[in-house]
């Protein structure tokens, strides 16, 4: 190799250093702009502008038509009304009940099934895997309609089954009884969404090298201890992700509740989504609805940021 290939030009041989620098900088900016503008314009049109408008509407008593005037300006009035409305309190409470039940029942169920059918030697596990995932493929409206039949007070599948199993069982109007309705809906949500979490868990399981579990077995761990000390810790990132998605899903739940009960009876199954739809849109209180939307938006946004920052990040430090 010749020595000249490594020769460095002295600085003072570049008389137009400044202008070259400018050109380069412009090129760079142009490139950045070229790649950013399409994405950013979509972000702007469908996210930033609507959010800003919603935030603005939330300050007015606005029916959805006509201009926003100083006469119907309400300040934080909508927010105060929301804060004082006991139905909203119920909706929040129900949202958190569904969230808690999802974390305590739906996710462990999905994990258990993933361990069962995601690997191992269970005969027919491929078949079960497909079967268990099917509910997730249905649209939410169809799911809700199917389950309305299941919960039918006179000839629904639920009552029919319980009558066959438990002698003397009296039919329950599952969706018409304040005590049962929320849990009946939670059962539907579980049926619908556990397959999705199961799929994530199966992917997580597959990323664990078989060697590690074998090593633990030889080290003296029984199946339970292998699960506890090796499999679950290594599933950590997947579990944190499903918890995140599950919590967000609970905040956003709307379709199934709306179709099955419309939040009833007497607001017994009202969640934040249905509350917004009922009190904001159906009653043409778009200003009020916007305030609900803003609360919902900031709740999920703050939760997401905190979760990403403190929970998902902690995991990166532990990761391999």
């Amino acid at each position, binding site marked *: 190799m010749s020595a000249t290939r490594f020769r460095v030009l002295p600085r003072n041989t570049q008389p137009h250093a400044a202008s070259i620098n400018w050109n380069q900088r412009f090129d760079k900016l142009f490139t950045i702009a070229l790649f950013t503008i399409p994405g950013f314009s979509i972000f702007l049109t469908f996210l930033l502008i609507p959010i800003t408008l919603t935030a603005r509407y939330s300050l007015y008593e606005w029916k959805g038509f006509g201009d926003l005037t100083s006469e119907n300006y309400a300040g934080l009035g909508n927010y105060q009304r929301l804060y004082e409305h006991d139905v909203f309190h119920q909706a929040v409470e129900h949202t958190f009940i569904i969230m808690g039940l999802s974390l305590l029942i739906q996710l462990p169920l999905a994990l258990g099934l993933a361990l069962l059918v995601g690997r191992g030697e269970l005969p027919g596990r491929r078949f079960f895997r497909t079967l268990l995932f099917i509910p997730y493929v249905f649209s939410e409206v169809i799911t809700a309609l199917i389950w309305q039949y299941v919960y039918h007070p006179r000839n629904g599948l639920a009552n029919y089954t319980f009558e066959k199993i438990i002698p003397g069982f009296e039919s329950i109007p599952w969706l018409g009884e304040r005590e049962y309705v929320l849990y009946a809906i939670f059962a539907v949500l579980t049926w619908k969404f556990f397959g999705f979490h199961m799929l994530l868990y199966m992917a997580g399981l597959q990323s664990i090298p078989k*060697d590690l579990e074998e090593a633990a077995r*030889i080290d003296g761990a029984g199946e339970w201890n292998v699960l506890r000390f090796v499999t679950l810790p290594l599933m950590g990132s997947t579990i944190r992700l499903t918890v995140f998605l599950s919590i967000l899903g609970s905040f956003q739940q709307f379709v199934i509740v709306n179709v099955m009960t419309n939040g009833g009876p007497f607001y017994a199954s009202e969640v934040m989504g249905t509350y917004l739809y009922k009190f904001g849109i159906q009653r043409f209180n778009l200003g009020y609805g916007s305030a609900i939307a803003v609360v919902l938006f900031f709740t999920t946004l703050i939760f997401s940021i905190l979760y990403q920052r403190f929970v998902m990040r902690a995991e990166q430090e532990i990761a391999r």
Partner: protein
Amino acid sequence: MASVTYRHVYKRFSPEITVINDLNIEIADGEFLVFVGPSGCGKSTSLRMLAGLEEITEGEILIGDRVVNNVAPKDRDIAMVFQSYALYPHMTVYDNMAFGLKLRRTPKQIIDERVRESAKSLDIAHLLDRRPRQLSGGQRQRVALGRAIVREPAVFLLDEPLSNLDAKLRVEARAFISRLHQRLGTTFIYVTHDQTEALTMGTRIAVLSAGYLQQIDSPSKLYSYPDNLFVAGFIGSPAMNFFNAKVVESEGKLIIDTTSFRIPAPPDREHLLRAYVGKDVILGVRPEDIHHPNYQPADIQSATIEAIVDVIELMGNEKIVYLSFDDSSQSSFLARMDPRSDVHLGGKTGAVINLGNVHLFDAATEVVIREDPAPSEDAKRAALAYKSGKPH
């Protein structure tokens, strides 16, 4: 500490696929047994059956006097080092090593003593607070060994523990593991595809191929007295040279005739070769038993042939010379000659074959033609199964 016995062990993944065929081995307490063979020969499966990670289709495996077929891995009192090391990524080195003891509810103080002591002996004491991903390959390998040692198991199983190390580290680790075995005096069972590792570390070596035990012997015997063609070709590097030949009788003397050259039959096997007159045999000569005429050892029975020099590799302490013949009926062969040997590319050279060390195999059965030591039944059966074209 314990002995290990394989008794008529079979492993089938399906009725048609048999990966282990009637394996019979007795491993004495404190032995260093190496399973060696090409990939897919069943050596890892044999080890995994002993570890309890793979079910035994037929037969029995004993650790000590206890049949362990239905004993869970955790109750077999074994420790295993994996090729990938299989260190728990979410635990520190200390916790990796202590894990087995914690599960056995060993008192904390004893765990601490043992972990620190083992770590010291493995020179990883300063790494105890790190996680596996912060370690180099060699360090991980030692942690994996440490995790096995602290448990003080009856049997150590090592599944290709050195294959992820670079060449230099591998040589060091080889000596390290040998010393460890001497110090602990526990039974070691070691799986490798590398015949050098097998020869340097094992007190006995079991050569496996196509699911059959080919031969089990001490390293020196395995090298000097291979029982069949597979073992002869597999053990030794560079590998043994093979020549297709016929036994012919000429003026009352037996000659091994390869068409490219003729050498007299080795006198110690002449009486056995009488039965092979007119039949095909395979002549095997190790590269170090072919010398340059000017640098041949004294007092050997030898025969000199002439060959063409194809390639010369000077290794420093020796010259590896690739030789061939004018006619193409035999493939080229290797000789490890004295570095001073006067050979020239493309030129002819004399090659002196040490007759006492040549190996002769029955071309039909691929079993060695030899009386002392006579080839084992394992070797005969394995060679036959191999020949009959149903290795599985």
